[in-house]
C-alpha cells in the first residue's frame, strides 16, 4: 500500500521477542550462505576494532583460515538485554529487544553481517536498528577470558551466535549502572564471588578507554552492593 506521496505504508512492524530473534538470526545465516546481500550500500562510519589474536577464539586455528573467505564462520557475540534473555538470565517480560553485538570475528565481517541484517529486517518487518553493532566500540568493557565463558546460542550456517556469560553480563551492568542496569542486577541475584570477579575486572579498566568517573562509580557500587544470601 502506498500513500499519495508515494511513501510506503505498512502494517508490518514487529518487535523482537525471543522466537523472532532466533528466526532472524537463522535467516541471517541463510542470507550469508547465499552469498550475502550484494547491495552497493556503503558501510556506516564504524571502524572495525582489531580485537587481537587472543580474542578471536576458535576461528584463529589453521583449518578454518584455509577455507575460502565466503565459507569461513562468522562469529557474533551478543551482549546486553538480548544476551540476558536468550540465556534465560533476565525475565522475558522486559521491553522489546535491541540486539547489541559487541564482537564480530573476523573483525572485517561486520559489514557483511549488517547488510544481511538489514535485508532480514526488511523481510521480517523489524526496526532498522534491530541488530546494533555500536557496542563493538567498547570491547574493553568485557572481562578477559570471556570467550571461555560465552554461551552458544546457535549455529546458523556460517553464522555462529554466542551470548556473554552471566558474570560478564553482570560486569557490563555494573559498569553502565543506569537505573535499568541496577534493576537487572537485582534480577541477576549477584553473589559475593561475582562481586569479587567484577571488581578485579573493573580495577583493570583504569587507564583504558572507560572514563575514570565510570570506573570509580562502578567500584563504589560494587563495594556497596548488598548480596542476598
Amino acid at each position, binding site marked *: 500500500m502506498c500513500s499519495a506521496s508515494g511513501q510506503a505504508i505498512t*502494517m508490518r512492524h514487529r518487535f523482537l521477542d*525471543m522466537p523472532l530473534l532466533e528466526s532472524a538470526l537463522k535467516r541471517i545465516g541463510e542470507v550469508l550462505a547465499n552469498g550475502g546481500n550484494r547491495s552497493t550500500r556503503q558501510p556506516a562510519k564504524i571502524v572495525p576494532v582489531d580485537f587481537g589474536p587472543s580474542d578471536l577464539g576458535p576461528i584463529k586455528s589453521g583449518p578454518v583460515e584455509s577455507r575460502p573467505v565466503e565459507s569461513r564462520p562468522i562469529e557474533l557475540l551478543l551482549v546486553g538485554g538480548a544476551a540476558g534473555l536468550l540465556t534465560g538470565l533476565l525475565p522475558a517480560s522486559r*521491553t522489546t529487544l535491541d540486539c547489541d553485538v559487541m564482537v564480530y570475528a573476523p573483525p572485517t565481517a561486520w559489514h557483511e553481517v549488517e547488510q544481511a541484517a538489514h535485508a532480514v529486517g526488511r523481510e521480517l518487518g523489524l526496526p532498522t536498528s534491530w541488530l546494533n553493532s555500536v557496542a563493538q566500540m567498547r570491547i574493553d568493557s568485557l572481562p578477559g577470558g570471556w570467550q571461555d565463558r560465552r554461551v552458544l546460542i546457535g549455529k546458523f550456517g556460517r553464522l555462529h551466535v554466542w551470548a556473554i556469560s552471566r558474570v560478564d553480563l553482570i560486569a557490563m551492568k555494573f559498569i553502565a549502572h543506569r*537505573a535499568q542496569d*541496577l534493576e537487572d542486577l537485582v534480577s541477576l541475584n549477584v553473589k559475593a564471588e561475582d562481586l569479587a570477579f567484577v571488581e578485579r575486572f573493573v580495577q583493570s579498566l583504569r587507564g583504558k578507554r572507560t572514563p575514570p568517573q565510570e570506573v570509580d562509580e562502578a567500584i563504589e*557500587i560494587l563495594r556497596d552492593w548488598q548480596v542476598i544470601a
Partner: protein
Amino acid sequence: MNANARGQVAHDELIARWARAGAGFNVPPAPSSEQSPDLERLLLETARQARGDSRVFIMAASWLARYATLIAKHRLRAMIVHELEPSHRAALGLLLDIVHHKLKTDRFNGAIRACADSIPSVGEPLFDVESRSEVLRRIARDRAMQISLRWNRWVADFEFKEDAIRPPLWVMQQNPEYVDRAEFKGDLRASILIEIRNDAEAGASEQELARRCGATRPAVRAALAGLELAKRIDREHRGVRHAAMLSV
C-alpha cells in the same frame, strides 16, 4: 494474595495496557476484547508504578514523544487534581516535563502545573533501585538531568526508544476508540467525548462536564457547540440544564 503479588499483578496489567497502546514490551497486549487503554488513566498508573520499573517510565516517555496528541490534555489535568495522589504527582510532572522539553511542546503545560503543586521538599532518586543505599543515591544525584532536579525526583538523561513504539496504523487499528482523540488532537472536545463515552452521566450538564474536564463552562459550551455541529453529540434541554449525549 499478598501485597507483593498484588503489586506484580498490577504491574503486569500496566505493561499489557502499554503494549496494547503501542509500546514495545515483550508481553501479549491487553486483549482486544477489552476496551482500549484509557490513556490518561494509564499515565496516572504509570506515575504510581514508575518507582519500581525504570523501563516503564522510559517507554511511557517514548510513547508520549510520538503520540502526545492522543492525550486529552484537559482531562489529564483534571484527573491529576481529582485522582492522583500528591505523592505520585512529581513522577508524572517529571515525565510530562521531559517530553515538554525534548519536543518543545506546550501541550502538557496545564498538567505539569497541576503536578508542580506537589513537588516534594526533599530530593531523592525517582527509581527505588537507586535508593537502596547512600552511594547509589549520591550517584543518582550526580547523574540526574537538570529537569529532574527541579522536580526533586532524580533521573539520568535517556534517549527516547523510538524503535520500540508501534506506528500509527497499528495503534489505531488496535485501538479504534482513539480516533476521536486523534481527530481533535487531544483538545477539550476529545476530553468531552471520552467522558461521555465512559459514563453517560458525565453529559448530564455543562457544569458536570466542566468539572470532569477541568475546563470552564463557557469553554465546555463552545466545545459542545462544535461537537454538535460535527454531529458527534446531541444536546437536549433537561429543565434548566443542557444535557449532551453521543450521537447515534
